[in-house]
């Protein structure tokens, strides 16, 4: 009996570093920001008088940007998850050399840094970029299209290409243990190739699809570099507003309130995605 208790204690002891890191570097600051979000700033000093003025201001001034951020992030997450499924399914269903090549290529793209990818897209989409030069060269347009870069479309393209490998891996990991015989069995019992996907594949990888969606959504909703580098003046996402409150404007309470508003919106979107997947990706 004593031995078991000691063993349990030892095992729990092993968790201490992880809990310390998570608690000290994540939970404590988060709680502190939650508290701060109810304060206000006067002459660059925090005023410790709890009130809801920050949230009232977000309700009146920032619902639009929050909605826009959630919308564009959801679009990015949906596109990324769909593409991730297509690529992961391709890698998985081709167990051969071609599948391995695709998997290798997917992993290889992880070596390119985030900023490198942004600049690569700027090179592609810019006024003097490859796409515009080609279009002009082929006389498909007379003048370069400025809307390619510095547009919401550019933000979507950059973030989808950046997030895709991260989304492919969990989906591929979930597909791998699926027994191919069960797919043949579904065919045998009357399912079309699409029916096999609907009944024998998708319902079994809902957690991975949700992971891919949540990962893509959260990174997009929190991003403030991509919108600034390729989004132009019209693409103002919450990350940019929050950054400016913490930076230039030195209004930490409003920034914290914005952070929590965005966080709550994100949780709502992911919960909706989860319910949606559970409802629609269910076996017949």
């Amino acid at each position, binding site marked *: 009996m004593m031995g078991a208790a000691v063993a349990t204690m030892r095992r729990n002891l092993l968790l201490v570093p992880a809990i310390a890191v998570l608690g000290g570097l994540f939970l404590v600051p988060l709680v502190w920001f939650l508290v701060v979000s109810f304060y206000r700033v006067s002459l660059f000093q925090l005023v410790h008088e709890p009130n809801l003025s920050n949230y009232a201001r977000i309700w009146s001034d920032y619902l639009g940007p929050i909605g826009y951020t959630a919308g564009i992030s959801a679009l990015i997450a949906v596109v990324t998850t769909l593409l991730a499924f297509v690529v992961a399914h391709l890698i998985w269903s081709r167990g051969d050399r071609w599948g391995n090549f695709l998997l290798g290529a997917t992993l290889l793209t992880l070596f390119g840094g985030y900023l490198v990818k942004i600049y690569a897209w700027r090179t592609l989409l810019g006024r003097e970029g490859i796409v515009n030069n080609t279009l002009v060269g082929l006389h498909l347009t007379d003048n370069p299209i400025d809307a390619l870069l510095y547009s919401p479309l550019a933000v979507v393209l950059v973030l989808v290409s950046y997030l895709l490998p991260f989304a492919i891996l969990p989906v591929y990991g979930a597909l791998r243990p699926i027994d191919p015989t069960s797919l043949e069995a579904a065919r045998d*019992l009357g399912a079309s190739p699409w029916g096999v996907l609907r009944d024998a594949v998708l*319902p079994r990888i809902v957690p991975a699809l949700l992971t891919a969606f949540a990962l893509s959504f959260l990174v997009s909703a929190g991003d403030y570099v991509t919108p600034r580098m390729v989004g132009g003046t019209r693409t103002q996402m919450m990350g940019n507003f929050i950054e400016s409150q913490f930076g230039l404007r030195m209004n930490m309470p409003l920034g914290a309130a914005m952070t929590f508003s965005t966080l709550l919106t994100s949780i709502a979107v992911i919960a909706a995605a989860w319910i949606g997947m559970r409802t629609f990706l269910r076996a017949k």
Partner: protein
Amino acid sequence: MLQRAIDSSPHSPITDAVPAGAPLVRLTGVAKDYNGFQAVHPLDMTIERGDFVSILGPSGCGKTTLLRMLGGFITPSQGRIEVDGVDVTALPPEKRATNMVFQGYGLFPHMSVRQNIGYGLRLARTPAREVAERVEEMVDLVQLGAFAERAPTALSGGQQQRVALARALIMRPKVLLLDEPFAALDLKLRKAMQDEMRRLHDAIGGTFVFVTHDQTEAMALANRIAVMEGGHLRQLGTAEEIYLRPANHFVSAFVGEANFVRATRRNGRVALSNGLTVVSPGEDGEVEIGVRPERLMIGAPAEGADVCLRGSVTERLFLGAHVQYRVRTESGETLVANALEGHFSPGDSLRIGWNLADQWVVAS
């Protein structure tokens, strides 16, 4: 009740158009070539209604390829497959009136046993009430009532096997295909499942095609056995025909044990080494005479046998049910004889013989 249910299969709108005597399945020159590797050589085969056919052969003989061509998972390189008078050669599995029990079962782990069994009917847009009724019927038939709400992963191998069987049978297939369904089970369970398969076939009728590498299993279950080797169909016949009158050397040696005695055929007669000749139509040349070990007589009984040779015992093995003797004949051939009594020892001289009715002749 069940028999009628099977005959009124939803897949068979054309049943009446086919003459009563026509075989249910007809393979004509069916072959499969994988980039130069001939997995199945062109073969013809017919399966009658109600048949329990076993495709028997060593691994790599093409038996699973043949079964998968019947199920629609492999498209033949040439030839034609007809089921109930309909050419199904180009049809995908979901459009065929055949259903398969897979090796490894392929159950859906995200569905309960009941949902697994009812899946095919739900796909066919069968009314929910009828699905529920037929699922219950199947659950009872395979005796899984107590496990119907469980996930298949929570079941034992034998139980999973029965779910796979029920899931295919509920579709009332014109032909039920089984791909080594008992390979993963231990010996005792395999025997029990074989009994259950026989009981099922007796109870519900239908036509079963069963792939196995186990000749005992083939004999225990099938009324007709197709022996395959190297992509060729070597013989198709009843268990008795396959065992007692094998058509060639491979079947003789693969199905049970066999002794071979070299001989020569001239003008339709085969001359044995002891001067005896027997009538055996066929091409002239070297032949082999085959005899099963348990048909060989040794000692006194051999003296009255149609063919009687002299020899000496080189080995004696007590195997429980019988004693196995290895006997070297005067002409230098080694024969294996299984006898019930065991009073000979190595070195003993004895007579060994057999009756003409127990031998067969194959080209060597």
